[in-house]
């Protein structure tokens, strides 16, 4: 299975080369891979339907992260759809992109997507599943943004990426929680942990995170809006990713995890409500569309809602219905999308109002669309019929509010019947229209929809095959053995059959009267303006503005605001830590420690503090400089008193130099002006006062514990024998840490160069700079 997945990625790189050398056959050549995988899957079917095929590859040293694959009934059904539809789509894309320069890129992306999607449905490890999940989001992004020169495409691609990618993040969190709670990262082992998972306090968070992931990926309300937007992609992409496969990923995920997480009230409520709202909203919105692709997209949204509803219901019948519908939908919706693309290709329009009577010009298309449409409408003999029967049966035997559920499902299904008629009767029947540049599409564009349409019929006529395939998938969804009994034609009149008939009749009536519906639909459209898509736009548009505002607040170019942020954040974090974890209190023996203060030291302290007060109060430059000097010389005396004559000497000389420098450089500056308002002064005093108090406290706490410094004695012992010097401090500076002192000298040298540049290189007159001046201006 690893080979099947990897082959897609590897061949994706080769596809552009193939397209360059064999532009006409490239699509068909690329289709060989999915076709081969399809055949291989059929070969494995017996094993998959029985015990299942498992593959495990060590991948990462992290515990729980293995690259494991598991092919069971559900995976087989999905993988067959992915590879089978994939092969047809690549052939179709070959014809669709005929003569376009970048066709190779499309094949490459489609192959890469197919590989990701295969990986997603085959993966048995939660983390591996997530990685393939994200890969499908990324390939989908690249494919939606196919016409990257157009802003509309880029916006739609980004929207889809943000919605599905954001959901993906939630999903990751959910999967990790599942792994942590259940203790297993292999999906096959999760069902056995169902009790642990459902009794855990994290069950609801897991469910909600899962909902975010699945609903965003499968275009459920309120995330449904990205799917119609994604219709800007070329039609092969829409048919493949956005109807048959990728949007089913969320549904697949729910189906896959329902044995482990499903069956609870929360599960049913969450997914049935989401599904039903989506079913009805999508159905309603699909009636309103004039663009074939958008109509099909909304109809797909609706279908996905139906699947989610069934998975939420979670009964055995619902699982059977979901599996049957999954299969039937992939066939008829893929076919209808491809028909829409072929018509677009032939006539240059997808507008339903401008298409009529195409049956004469496109008989093959009419046949394909007819087969798919009949299946979609749920007409007997086709795959869609059986699915619809089971949906109604599941609703009638759901045991809850049977009539409400049945009614809502009926309403959703009626919309499907209408869409099916739009895609068949409306565009193919009637008097034919003349198009300026009409050219009948070749066999490449019809092969796909015809095969899919015919498969819909074949599955309807071969109930055993359908029952085996769907039954195996339903077993994986339901978590217990399931046998589906299917008939070509029902042999007795059941409530389900009556409901099916009612659906079709209502659908036909609604289709006939569709013009009368316009005002209602328009009214709903007004409501859509306030919908989630608008909220999304506001969010995405508002984010940069918010960032700008935050940046303006934090990075306003004022040093003092930066200092304030740094000091404030430091104090805040410190206070938080102190509150949450506790911290050292004020040492108790302060008075005793203070007692050793001698008189001359007290005088010194008073002098320094007085100098400091004078610095703060200074209103002329001279006062400021002199007061700074007092503090500096005071520091030097501290050094003298406590055995550091070298420091004192340095401090004295530098203090003297500093005062001279201050006076020389700044004597021309005006006096001190009070610039800040009183409130700012007060705020700054409080914050800096607190910072100072914290430093004092810190020193008191540090000096309260004994110090062990082996360095002190080491340097004292080593400096004479090793450094041949008697002043230990000097020996450290020029010998033991000689390179440090080199660095220090370098820094001073650079500062001197900078000072020279600032003083000597001046801007010339009239704003012009002298030669070499650019360096000095800062």
């Amino acid at each position, binding site marked *: 299975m690893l080979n099947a997945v990897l082959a897609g990625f590897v061949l994706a790189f080769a596809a552009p080369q193939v397209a360059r050398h064999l532009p006409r056959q490239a699509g068909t050549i690329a289709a060989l891979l999915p076709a081969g995988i399809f055949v291989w899957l059929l070969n494995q079917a017996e094993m998959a339907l029985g015990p299942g095929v498992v593959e495990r590859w060590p991948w990462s040293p992290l515990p729980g992260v293995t690259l494991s694959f598991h092919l069971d009934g559900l995976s087989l059904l999905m993988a067959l759809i992915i590879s089978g539809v994939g092969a047809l789509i690549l052939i179709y894309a070959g014809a669709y992109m005929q003569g376009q320069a970048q066709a190779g890129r499309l094949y490459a992306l489609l192959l890469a997507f197919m590989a990701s999607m295969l990986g997603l449905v085959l993966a048995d490890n939660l983390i591996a599943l997530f990685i393939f999940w994200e890969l499908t989001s990324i390939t989908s992004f690249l494919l939606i943004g196919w016409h990257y020169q157009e802003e509309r495409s880029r916006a739609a691609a980004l929207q889809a990426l943000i919605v599905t990618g954001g959901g993906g993040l939630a999903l990751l969190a959910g999967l990790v929680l599942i792994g942590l709670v259940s203790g297993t990262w292999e999906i096959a082992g999760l069902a056995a942990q169902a009790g642990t998972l459902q009794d855990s306090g994290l069950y609801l968070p897991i469910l909600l995170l899962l909902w975010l992931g699945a609903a965003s990926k499968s275009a459920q309300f309120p995330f449904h809006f990205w799917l119609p937007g994604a219709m800007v992609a070329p039609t092969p992409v829409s048919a493949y990713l956005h109807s048959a496969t990728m949007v089913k990923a969320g549904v697949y995920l729910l189906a896959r995890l329902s044995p482990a997480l499903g069956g609870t009230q929360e599960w049913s409520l969450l997914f049935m409500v989401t599904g039903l709202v989506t079913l009805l909203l999508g159905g309603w919105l699909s009636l309103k569309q004039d663009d074939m692709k958008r109509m099909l997209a909304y109809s797909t949204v609706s279908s996905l809602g139906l699947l989610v509803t069934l998975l939420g219901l979670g009964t055995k019948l619902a699982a059977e219905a979901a599996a049957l519908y999954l299969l039937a939908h992939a066939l008829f919706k893929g076919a209808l999308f491809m028909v829409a693309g072929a018509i677009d290709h032939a006539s240059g329009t997808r507008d339903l109002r401008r298409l009529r009577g195409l049956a004469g010009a496109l008989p093959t298309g009419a046949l394909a669309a007819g087969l798919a449409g009949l299946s979609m409408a749920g007409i007997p003999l086709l795959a869609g019929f059986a699915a619809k029967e089971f949906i109604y049966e599941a609703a009638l035997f759901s045991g809850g509010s049977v009539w409400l559920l049945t009614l809502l499902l009926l309403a959703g299904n009626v919309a499907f019947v209408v869409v099916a008629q739009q895609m068949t009767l409306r565009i193919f029947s009637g008097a034919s229209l003349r198009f300026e540049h009409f050219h009948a599409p070749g066999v490449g564009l019809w092969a796909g929809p015809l095969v899919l349409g015919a498969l819909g019929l074949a599955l309807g006529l071969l109930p055993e095959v359908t029952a085996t395939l769907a039954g195996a998938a339903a077993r994986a969804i339901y978590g217990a053995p399931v046998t589906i009994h299917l008939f070509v034609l029902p042999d007795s009149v059941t409530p389900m059959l009556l409901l099916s008939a009612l659906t079709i009749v209502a659908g036909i009536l609604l289709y006939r009267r569709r013009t009368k519906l316009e005002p209602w639909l328009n009214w709903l459209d007004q409501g859509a303006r306030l919908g989630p898509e608008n909220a999304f736009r506001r969010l995405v548009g508002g984010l940069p503005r918010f960032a700008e505002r935050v940046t303006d607040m934090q990075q306003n170019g004022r040093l*003092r605001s930066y200092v304030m942020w740094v000091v404030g954040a430091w104090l805040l974090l410190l206070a938080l830590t102190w509150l949450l974890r506790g911290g050292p209190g004020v040492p108790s023996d302060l008075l005793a420690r203070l007692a050793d203060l001698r008189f001359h030291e007290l005088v010194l302290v008073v002098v320094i503090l007085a100098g400091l007060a004078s610095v703060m109060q200074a209103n002329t430059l001279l006062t400021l400089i002199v007061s700074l000097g007092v*503090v500096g010389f005071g520091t030097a005396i501290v050094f003298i008193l406590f055995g550091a004559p070298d420091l004192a000497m340095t401090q004295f000389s530098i203090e003297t130099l*500093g005062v001279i420098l201050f006076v020389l450089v700044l004597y021309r500056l005006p006096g001190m002006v009070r610039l800040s308002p009183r409130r700012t002064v007060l705020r700054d005093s409080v914050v800096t006062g607190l910072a100072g108090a914290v430093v004092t406290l810190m*020193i008191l706490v540090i000096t309260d514990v004994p110090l062990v410094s082996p360095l*002190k004695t080491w340097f004292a012992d080593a400096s004479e024998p090793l450094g041949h010097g008697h002043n*230990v401090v000097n020996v450290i500076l020029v010998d033991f840490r000689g390179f440090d002192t080199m660095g220090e000298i370098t820094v001073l040298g650079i500062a001197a160069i*900078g000072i020279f540049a600032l003083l000597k290189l001046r801007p010339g007159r009239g704003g012009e700079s002298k030669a070499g001046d650019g360096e000095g201006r800062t």
Partner: protein
Amino acid sequence: MEVALAIVIGALYAAGLYMMLRRSMVKLIAGLVLLGYASNLLIFVVSRLTRASPPLVPEGAHSVAEPFADPVPQALILTAIVIGFGLQAFALVLVRRAFQAVNSDDLDQVTASDRPDLQA
């Protein structure tokens, strides 16, 4: 003395930060200088004070006899003092040039490099 100096250092930090929060460029430099003093004293104090002799090896001896002051922080502070002076000198000249350019001591007048939109 450690307790008294702890208070002095706290006051130096508070005053240094306070001065850095002023709009005046000169006060900003004064704040930097004060922070320099504060940091040097901080290192000095947390490595414990001894009223004893400096770390000098007497003539003829091979080691310093206890008690003596710890030479390691002294070496660090010596470097710091000199670097601090370099910084102070550079900052002073920079302020002078800034003053020549905008003819004001007010930092709010010096916005051109951060906000190109306000230039001109």
